[in-house]
């Protein structure tokens, strides 16, 4: 199936500043939840802004359902709902009116029943006649989501949806996102909380300094993450890995004094016992052993570190 969003060589640079997006290419599949993970200032919001029409890219193309976002902006934008990171909301308008405005802006005929459904789903129905400046921060965020959903988008961008949000609202948002995905909405969310990406996403992209460093299925990434590494220190330098140990896929340290063994903690058999027996049988003596967890955080920090 053709990707619902196709980003090709997208670059955004400012004349008096750094390159905010550096040749980013990414295909987003219909119906998936993709999380863009990266530190503050990595370019996540710039990427979203370029796709949604808030900024004009320096070069590169983006198509949404085959519609070019510049040539065919009406068709492209009509499919997209955007929940911005900043809580920008008309202070003196009621929840109802501001939500209806968004639906109109996106060219949709007035449909009070749909707006009622959206407001109820976000627990905003009782607040529909409340002015936005009288709402709590969490409620304002819900209003932004309601506005984005008011025009029945097929794609939803959530820019840092849970930044500064309490735990219960975060759980609510996650539940809502899952429900939207079940309804067939494609969701792109940015976050700098790794646990959020782990919890929500089908795929995870890591972005830093305007570059997309990696996009991977979460399960694949988690396999890397569920892995552990056993490192054994040797008493004598080993010139090469003996043939009897080939099946363990060991990695010999540069100095020949360590062996590393990667295994999956979630597997029924880790192979450690047999490895240690085979090491002894091969006449290799150990001075120490050490095991390390790898986590998404490690992968992330490693990727971001390499990019520094």
């Amino acid at each position: 199936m053709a990707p619902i969003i196709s980003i090709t060589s997208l670059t955004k640079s400012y004349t008096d500043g750094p390159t905010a997006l550096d040749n980013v290419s990414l295909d987003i599949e219909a119906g998936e939840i993709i999380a863009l993970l990266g530190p503050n200032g990595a370019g996540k919001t710039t990427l979203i802004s370029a796709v949604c029409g808030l900024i004009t890219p320096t070069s590169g193309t983006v198509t949404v359902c085959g519609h070019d976002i510049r040539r065919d902006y009406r068709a492209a934008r009509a499919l997209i709902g955007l929940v911005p990171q900043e809580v920008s909301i008309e202070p003196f308008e009621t929840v109802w009116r501001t939500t209806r405005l968004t639906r109109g802006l996106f060219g949709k005929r007035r449909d009070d029943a749909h707006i009622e459904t959206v407001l109820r789903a976000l627990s905003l129905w009782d607040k529909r006649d409340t002015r936005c400046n009288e709402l709590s921060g969490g409620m304002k965020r819900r209003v932004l989501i309601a506005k984005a959903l008011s025009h029945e988008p097929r794609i939803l961008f959530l820019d840092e949806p849970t930044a500064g949000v309490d735990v219960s609202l975060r759980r609510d948002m996650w539940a809502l996102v899952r429900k939207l995905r079940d309804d067939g909405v494609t969701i792109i969310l940015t976050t700098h909380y790794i646990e959020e990406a782990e919890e929500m996403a089908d795929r995870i992209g890591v972005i830093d300094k305007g570059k997309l460093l990696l996009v991977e299925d979460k399960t694949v990434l988690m396999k890397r993450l569920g892995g552990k590494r056993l490192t054994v220190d040797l008493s004598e330098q080993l010139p090469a890995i003996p043939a009897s140990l080939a099946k363990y896929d060991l990695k010999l340290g540069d100095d020949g004094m360590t062996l590393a063994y990667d295994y999956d903690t979630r597997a029924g058999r880790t192979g450690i016992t047999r490895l240690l027996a085979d090491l002894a049988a091969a006449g290799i003596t150990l001075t120490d052993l050490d095991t390390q967890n790898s986590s998404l955080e490690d992968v992330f920090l490693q990727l971001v570190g390499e990019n520094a």
Partner: protein
Amino acid sequence: MNIEAILAIYRFEMARFFRTVWQSMASPVLSTVLYFVVFGTAIGNRIQEVEGVPYGAFIVPGLIMLTVLQQAISNASFGIYFPKFIGTVYELLSAPISVIEIVIGYVGAAATKSIIIALVILVTSFFFVGVHIAHPFWMIGFLVLTAVSFSLFGFIIGIWAKSFEQLQIIPLMVITPLVFLGGAFYSASMLPPFWEGVARLNPVLYLISGFRWSFFGMADVPVGVSLFAVALFLAIGIGAVWAIFRTGWRLRA
């Protein structure tokens, strides 16, 4: 054409107006009453007539024009500046709408508001002086064209402004002097020849003159010239807005 979007913007802006309708109305009506008291009654007792029109009635078109220009500019500039200021402009930029539609929505609403206020002032003036409108059709025509032109200027100011101070400086420093010097309260022919020549350089003179002609059938300049001036304002406004949006100036980085 995204008609729904134009209507959404228009209704949203008009709702703001009607929500604060008493504030919106009170200030222009109060200042108009003050002008009538000071100019119409106090000074008018000594001037009596200007070219056959009682002075109290003579100033009515100028007062309406003064209000229309101020209201059109301030409403339109605030209408687009406020979303920029609070950040909700993201919605306009991400919506499937063209610049033309944004302009029609905001300028249409600002023009409507200023016309409503103008008509309220006209009605208010009936309480003070007997005003007879010789050419009602032309009166409405001048009113609408002026309101639209200056709403366009206001829209440009709102796009240009980076602070509330900048938002207010043009109406305060440019429009008010031009209206006062444009014959709102006197006929240009009452000035010495040199200053009459200077006054004719003031574009607003042609607006007030044409508008006054539609009331009393008399004017400083031929009504055709006034009509041409209004059309020119409109063309400049449309041209400037078009140029701004072709370049995405100050809206989209």
